[in-house]
């Protein structure tokens, strides 16, 4: 294992990478690929999820993740990705234990439902706990060295990300003094520092792009540091123009394929529809480029997001 205290990856300078995007854009897959990319070269990274979906375990085909950092993948060159599913209840008990030595009282709290209350009902509290745990992992050192080169968060979707990351605002309304306020201020400082970047995953489709635009505006207002726009499942352009029927007929004949009217009409229609889509995607690419943030495109994985596919995406990111 190489030192993890050296400089961070030149293309991905942050220590904490928050990966969000509209539902269905593949942010879990992208987060996992980024964790792999940043582990390449013999480093150690941590991939975190916070919504209890067990998306990481499903992606890697393992048993559900416990509240414990476990190795989930390795790179060919000695790098390791560890994974953690942060559970708010466990995070609260850990927090109480660390700061208040509340072993037995913690159990009483749980039995009375106070933990359930604090983690699911008290607004903002849950997010302070989740982000607090992420901060702890991001800044953790052992013998003066960082434990993780980078932490990648498979974050809540774009529609909730602003609220999730804006921890101080949510808790300030409720807790004007006290440890919760201190904790949330510490988290907020990390999230607004150059140690953090928020990346937005999108597809070249209208609604995800619109949501990317809206989310960037929201994150900007909250002064959260924006990293890259990651266009997932991009396909290289295949067509310069729609082929004519006669060109199709000639080509099919030359290839020794049936060139009947139905085949020609079918391929013609498919090509035209595809061309229209490529033109729409070109417009969406321009729209994204105008936002002024670096963009990286990831290829569509024909074989799905298996381990080999994740390697392909990691290579495209790194």
């Amino acid at each position: 294992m190489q030192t993890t205290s050296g400089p961070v990856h030149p293309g991905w300078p942050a220590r904490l990478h928050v990966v969000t995007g509209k539902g269905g854009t593949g942010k879990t897959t992208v987060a996992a690929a980024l964790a792999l990319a940043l582990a390449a070269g013999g480093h150690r990274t941590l991939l975190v999820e916070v919504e209890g979906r067990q998306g990481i375990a499903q992606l890697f085909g393992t048993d559900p993740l416990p509240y414990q950092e476990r190795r989930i993948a390795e790179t060919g060159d000695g790098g390791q990705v560890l994974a953690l599913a942060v559970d708010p209840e466990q995070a609260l008990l850990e927090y109480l234990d660390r700061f208040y030595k509340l072993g037995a009282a913690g159990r009483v709290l749980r039995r009375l439902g106070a933990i359930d209350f604090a983690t699911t009902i008290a607004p903002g509290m849950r997010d302070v706990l989740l982000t607090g745990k992420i901060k702890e992992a991001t800044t953790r050192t052992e013998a003066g060295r960082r434990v993780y080169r980078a932490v990648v968060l498979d974050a809540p979707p774009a529609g909730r990300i602003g609220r999730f990351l804006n921890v101080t605002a949510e808790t300030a309304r409720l807790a004007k003094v006290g440890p919760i306020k201190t904790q949330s201020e510490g988290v907020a400082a990390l999230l607004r520092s150059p140690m953090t970047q928020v990346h937005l995953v999108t597809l070249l489709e209208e609604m995800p792009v619109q949501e990317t635009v809206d989310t960037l505006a929201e994150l900007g207002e909250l002064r959260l540091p924006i990293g890259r726009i990651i266009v997932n499942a991009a396909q290289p352009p295949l067509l310069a123009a729609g082929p004519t029927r006669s060109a199709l007929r000639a080509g099919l004949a030359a290839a020794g394929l049936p060139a009947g009217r139905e085949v020609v009409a079918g391929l013609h229609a498919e090509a035209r529809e595809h061309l229209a889509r490529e033109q729409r995607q070109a417009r969406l690419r321009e729209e994204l480029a105008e936002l002024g943030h670096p963009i990286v495109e990831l290829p569509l994985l024909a074989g799905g997001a298996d381990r080999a596919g994740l390697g392909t995406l990691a290579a495209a990111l790194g």
Partner: protein
Amino acid sequence: MPSHLALDADAILADPGVRIVVCCGAGGVGKTTTAAACALRAAEEHGRRTVVLTIDPARRLAQSLGLTELDNQPRLVKTDGDGGGELHAMMLDMKRTFDEVVEAHTDPQRAQEIFANPFYQAMSATFSGTQEYMAMEKLGQLRATGHAGLEWDLIVVDTPPSRSALDFLDAPARLARFLDGRMLRLLLAPARAGGRSMFQFMTASFGMFSKAVQRVLGAQLLRDLSGFVEALDSMFGGFRQRAERTYQVLQDEQTAFLLVAAPEADAIREARYFAKRLVEERMPLSGLVLNRVHHTAVPDLPAADSQAAADRIAAAHPEAAAALRVHATLVQQVVREQRMSARFTRAFPAVPYLEVPAQPTDVHDLDGLRAIGAALRPAPAPA
């Protein structure tokens, strides 16, 4: 999937016995669009007085339904069709719905106290379960009050894009449990606590416990919380009853659940999870609507053959070669999607299933919704 049970969603929309259609599923699969298309079809093709309750629709879709402001009231949508049907649409305003519930349960002065409490303000606007609870609350209201003195023929509900499939079914009960909560009352006013054994159990560790709570939450937060619970005290019981009633309405045979998914790994996984839950909870699951399914116009030409042919003729016939590559990519996608949908149909062979073809452009006008509505009938079996 010819061997699988076909879902006729259109027949459900036409059935006068069906009064509520719930569209549920993961985020990003076209749930809101499906809900709007169902409602429009019921109004235009089946002459029903329909209302669609949407949660956070995409802006252009909302505009196409005439929803420009969040006013928590059904608005008539200008539609075609002369069968006597009407389409009304509304967007859920979570906070306002919560305020209405409070007003309905308490006197005006108490209501004002509650509204002023920071705890209430935070919870009514941000608690992750509030949206789910209020969607169900609004459904209950729509069902009870109707419109212009008449009951709705059909209420179509979109569900919130939850953290997980569980939230939609669980959050109302969880929120009700909290508002109804014995724990909170014990916590805030142990002397008033009912249930002697609970109290005795608590006294042993209560000193440590309350000190811990004070330290972690802070005294000011506890004071606000105490005020909130005091103010809500008169309403305890009401919330739970309402949540239970709504739950029963959902289980009723007048209700039809349409599970919405897209042929992608995450969405199918969520759909399987959702189907399992709905079956376990005995919710009337009518079937799966699989959105954005691709088709090829030339099914007899496999991807590999098309790709190989493209390579052979690339130099002499570049245009045709490009078209063959497009075809190969499309067929690969079709095959991938079939594999995805099989993951659902194999796990739930008894759940009927319907494919809605991918639309050439994003749907954000009534014509687009009509096209989807027309696809809600299963394709006629090939002769």
